[in-house]
């Protein structure tokens, strides 16, 4: 596990926090906690949709007004805005299993923190506090007519807004107040495809066990990443890596430049087979320093 995390750090992926979620079947699943930037993006998208929906609703009311149903007044508009912005999140998170349109675009999802089903009460809980967390202080800052005359009045409200928006940064699971109350967590569910197997059917180069003693799992997985990413233009880098490996394992035969990739792939296959066997025999070699 530590080796995997090490490789993740080295190859610059895994920028999200990882949390284990135990399913009812008892299998711990690795979930990626959505980062604040993603959450803000999803919320902003939803916010745009909400404004759009409210606007459509008012437009419909306006059309009805011509039919003789009374005009649109400020209270009716406020009412519509309130209903839309509060019903929106609850409706989508309930009927789409924790995914609002904004979250869907960004690839986020609300789930139960303890691996159970997302209950309606949890959804309502996490959204009832939205008014307190965001909309109310936001409206106070935006609407307060006299805050230009008396800017200090905006200070406590600004502080309030700051506090609720900083809260997700103060805990490991990026919970805002509503997530805390509802027992929910927002995770990122990127879709991963099954990449091709790197180990080829036929080998050109063969390695002795002695030559495979040099590296551990961490190095193997960094090499895996290099091979998976190798495209046109990375030949100098590959040659460089192959050279280092050859020096390290004491490979004396020459490897022609055009065979660099084949050499690395064969080395990867041999090294993986060797390390998997060692691991199977109870000798897990996390990295090249395993002996010390």
């Amino acid at each position: 596990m530590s080796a995997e995390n090490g490789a993740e750090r080295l190859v610059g992926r895994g920028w999200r926090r990882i949390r284990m979620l135990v399913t009812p079947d008892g299998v711990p699943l690795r979930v990626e906690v959505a980062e604040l930037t993603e959450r803000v993006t999803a919320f902003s998208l939803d916010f745009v949709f909400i404004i759009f929906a409210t606007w459509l609703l008012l437009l419909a009311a306006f059309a009805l007004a011509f039919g003789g149903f009374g005009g649109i007044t400020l209270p009716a508009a406020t009412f519509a805005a309130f209903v839309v912005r509060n019903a929106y999140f609850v409706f989508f998170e309930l009927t789409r299993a924790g995914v609002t349109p904004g979250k869907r675009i960004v690839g986020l999802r609300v789930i139960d923190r303890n691996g159970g089903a997302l209950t309606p009460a949890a959804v309502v809980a996490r959204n009832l506090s939205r008014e307190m967390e965001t909309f109310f202080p936001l409206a106070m800052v935006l609407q307060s007519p006299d805050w230009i005359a008396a800017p200090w009045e905006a200070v406590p409200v600004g502080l309030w807004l700051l506090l609720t928006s900083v809260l997700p940064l103060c805990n490991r699971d990026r919970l805002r107040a509503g997530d805390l109350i509802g027992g929910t967590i927002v995770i990122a569910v990127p879709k991963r495809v099954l990449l091709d197997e790197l180990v080829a059917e036929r080998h050109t180069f063969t390695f002795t066990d002695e030559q495979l003693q040099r590296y551990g799992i961490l190095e193997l997985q960094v090499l895996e990443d290099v091979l998976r990413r190798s495209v046109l233009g990375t030949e100098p880098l590959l040659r460089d890596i192959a050279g280092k490996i050859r020096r390290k394992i004491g490979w004396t035969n020459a490897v022609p430049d055009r065979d660099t990739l084949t050499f690395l792939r064969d080395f990867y296959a041999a090294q993986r087979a060797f390390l998997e066997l060692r691991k199977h025999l109870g000798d897990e070699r996390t990295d090249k320093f395993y002996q010390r």
Partner: protein
Amino acid sequence: MQSLRFRREREASWLELEQLIEQVRESGIRSLSSDQLERFPLLHRSALSSLSVARAIALDRALVEYLDNLALRSFLTFYAPPLDLAATVRSFLQAGFPRAVRALRPHLAIALVALLIGTISGFALVNGHEGWFTDLVPAELAGGRGPASTAADLMTTEIAAPVPPNPFDAIANVLFSHNTLIALLTFGLGMLAGIPSILLTVYQGTILGAFIALHYHRGLALAFAGWVGIHGVTELLALILFAAAGMRLGEILVFPRELSRADAFAVHGPQAAKVAAGAVAMLALAAVLEGYFRAAIQSTDARLAIALLSLAGWTAYFSLSGRTPAR
């Protein structure tokens, strides 16, 4: 190589599962044929077991990552809550809401006391000196009423005001005056150890007390009781529920008992939120009573009757409903 053989043997079942997940995501669980429905749990379990095996034997990072992701997506698809919105609402009103309210008896008592303290102090202050009224009641709530109003003013502009030309507006207006926001804040800010909930409840009581004193001085006590009570019983009850739910949140924060705070919130928070959600519905009902029926029913006796009836109704609902275990 073990991981290579493992992948070759299982790969087809992963891809099949992935296809099912994609199909459910695109067109819903109902689009699966009965054969597919039968396969799904098998494939799900097999993916979970593949993941466990892969973690144990495979050093191919891409493979483990893929299986991790596949198992998670399968889990989320498999355990997505089956939700019939209408049935959920029905069972909430029949049992969930009154049960959640009954679980908060001590909090309800404290909220009621806070409201009474506020009302009595508001009344005492304005009763002693009417100048307090303008200090206690925000201008937009006072709506021109104040120490300068005469009994006749209050009668015509307020107590005997006619049905507004656009009842929907009046209802919406009432709902979005002041009270709803304060109510939601009473609940949400309860997270801060419950103190804001108590303070806001006392504050709401003070305003009520100030109004009572103003009318009492002009000999309109009974008429005012009818004018406020017709919707006020429901509204104040909702307010107490919000405060009780807010205090419950505060209690969880301060006394998480044997759980961690996050876990304590996860277990008890949704229960408190149920109370607040039901109270939102009560506020909407109160707004309809206030915006339309109050003006439509001009007799103080009838107004008082509705007030008492609603008090009896809510009491019966909260104490009797949902007692029998759910089917």
